[in-house]
């Protein structure tokens, strides 16, 4: 009796959720206060959902999904590229990565006529070098750019293979269905490079045996040289090249002794996975999400709701958790302006990529138009007043 009723109710709701799934024909997103979202869209291997909430005065998180040809030629290989770039010290590095990393990847894929871990590594390296030359050029006018950096998390799905490359403390988590129980389990696909992790501190000590102060506990937080929590990044050239660790850089960033070896690394950790039919979706997110939700909590939220709006739902769950920790109401947290909002939570970026088993292994581009969407945000200059609700930097097809 009850199950009949449930079936009836499900039948009532199904057309509604399907209708939402198919509204993703436009690739631009929507803005609701400091929240930007794109509930649903189609990538080469299935659907995706994307959401960003801004806390900093200038959004430091940047993100993109690129789908279709992954090379400079239309001949492929085909697939989906996802990038989450969590900047620190300013938005310059994460924006630079958003503008250049995928272009480098396409170039190297064309040269090698296939996608590989090596291609991704080269794209990271070219992006790091490109940003270093930008800092070198801008140093005389804008020396503080030497202290701007970004984490960089990339996922590439192509021909049934998933590559995950990571620098810093963003994270990718796979939702995999267990046939016997019907549950969806979370599998973490990347490891963070954050000094809060014992093995990261050990790695730093091993790389800098002559420096007992390479990691310092400050206000209960482990920081590399007492300055930064991540041990790998793009940018942060003030901790990579000694010639940028001097005046006129602010005193708080300058080290007492000159260093010979780079203190931070830009070498991504890359893992390669063969996708299986029961691999349902991947959640890519900046640490702003993971400091409030566990891997399994996030996977459960995606699994137990309609696909459309998954990313926004995850962002909201994290904000609700954040409000609880601050002992206030979620409805009030949402009213706080960018800038001062950063004291209540971080910028949060979430991209959920669903893996449609019919599409995962497909290799032809039949009828798929290239897709490019960037996570939005308010991009007003720092001195202007409260943000208005206009969408900015929406993607284009």
């Amino acid at each position, binding site marked *: 009796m009850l199950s009949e009723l449930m079936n009836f109710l499900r039948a009532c709701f199904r057309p509604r959720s399907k209708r939402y799934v198919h509204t993703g024909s436009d690739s631009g997103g929507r803005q609701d206060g400091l929240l930007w979202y794109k509930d649903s869209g189609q990538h080469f291997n299935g659907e995706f959902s994307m959401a960003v909430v801004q806390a900093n005065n200038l959004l430091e998180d940047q993100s993109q999904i690129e789908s279709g040809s992954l090379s400079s030629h239309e001949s492929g290989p085909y697939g989906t590229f996802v990038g989450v770039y969590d900047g620190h010290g300013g938005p310059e590095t994460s924006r630079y990565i958003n503008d250049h990393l995928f272009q480098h990847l396409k170039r190297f894929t064309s040269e090698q006529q296939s996608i590989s871990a090596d291609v991704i590594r080269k794209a990271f390296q070219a992006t790091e070098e490109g940003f270093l030359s930008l800092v070198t050029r801008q140093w005389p006018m804008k020396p503080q750019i030497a202290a701007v950096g970004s984490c960089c998390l990339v996922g590439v799905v192509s021909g049934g293979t998933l590559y995950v490359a990571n620098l810093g403390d963003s994270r990718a988590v796979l939702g995999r269905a267990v046939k016997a129980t019907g549950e969806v389990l979370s599998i973490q696909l990347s490891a963070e490079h954050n000094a809060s992790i014992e093995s990261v501190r050990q790695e730093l000590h091993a790389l800098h045996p002559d420096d007992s102060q390479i990691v310092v506990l*400050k206000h209960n937080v482990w920081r590399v040289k007492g300055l930064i929590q991540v041990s790998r990044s793009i940018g942060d050239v003030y901790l990579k090249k000694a010639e940028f660790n001097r005046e006129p850089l602010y005193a708080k960033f300058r080290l007492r002794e000159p260093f010979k070896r780079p203190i931070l690394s830009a070498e991504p950790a890359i893992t390669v996975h063969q996708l299986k039919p029961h691999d349902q979706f991947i959640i890519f997110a900046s640490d702003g999400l993971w400091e409030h939700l566990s891997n399994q909590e996030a996977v459960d939220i995606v699994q137990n709701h309609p696909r459309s709006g998954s990313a926004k739902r995850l962002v909201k769950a994290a904000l609700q958790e954040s409000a609880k920790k601050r*002992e206030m*109401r979620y409805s009030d947290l949402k009213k706080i302006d960018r800038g001062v909002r950063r*004291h209540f939570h971080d910028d949060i970026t979430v991209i959920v990529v669903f893996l449609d088993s019919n599409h995962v292994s497909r290799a032809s581009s039949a009828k798929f138009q290239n897709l490019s969407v960037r996570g939005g945000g308010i991009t007003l200059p720092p001195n202007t007043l409260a943000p208005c609700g206009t969408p900015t930097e929406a993607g284009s097809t």
Partner: protein
Amino acid sequence: MISPKKLLKIVRKWQKVAALNGRKISFPRAHHEGYTTMTSSSSSTVVDKGHFVVYTTDERRFVMPLAYLNDNILRELFKMSEQEFGLSSHGPITLPCDAIFMEYVVTLIRRGVTKDLEKALIRSIDNSGCSLISSSNFHDERIAGQQFLVCGF
């Protein structure tokens, strides 16, 4: 380091303002909704609509209306909190001052401080660098009696 002379000057200036406005504002503290304090031990509940919570270094809990987030003195304290304690995501926000100083700040905000005084106070906070602000800075013998007046109306 914070200069006591400067602070004294600010406090005197403020007292002038307080004297000017004193008669207009006469909410008994217990009934005023602007802020309440209690010890952190009784604090696991979510506050009323339209409010946020901060703690002081002596673990006193302050419930304030959201509008206070637009106040420059409070914003300066938030910035100092970031420098002092970093941006923690785990628990409530702690501002780097003690409860008496916080009550003083709240009084200033509630009375609508003049711009000049606001600037002077921010400057004095800035000059104190990263050192924690303690109300003991105010406890100059000559103003101790006035302090009661400031906080106890």
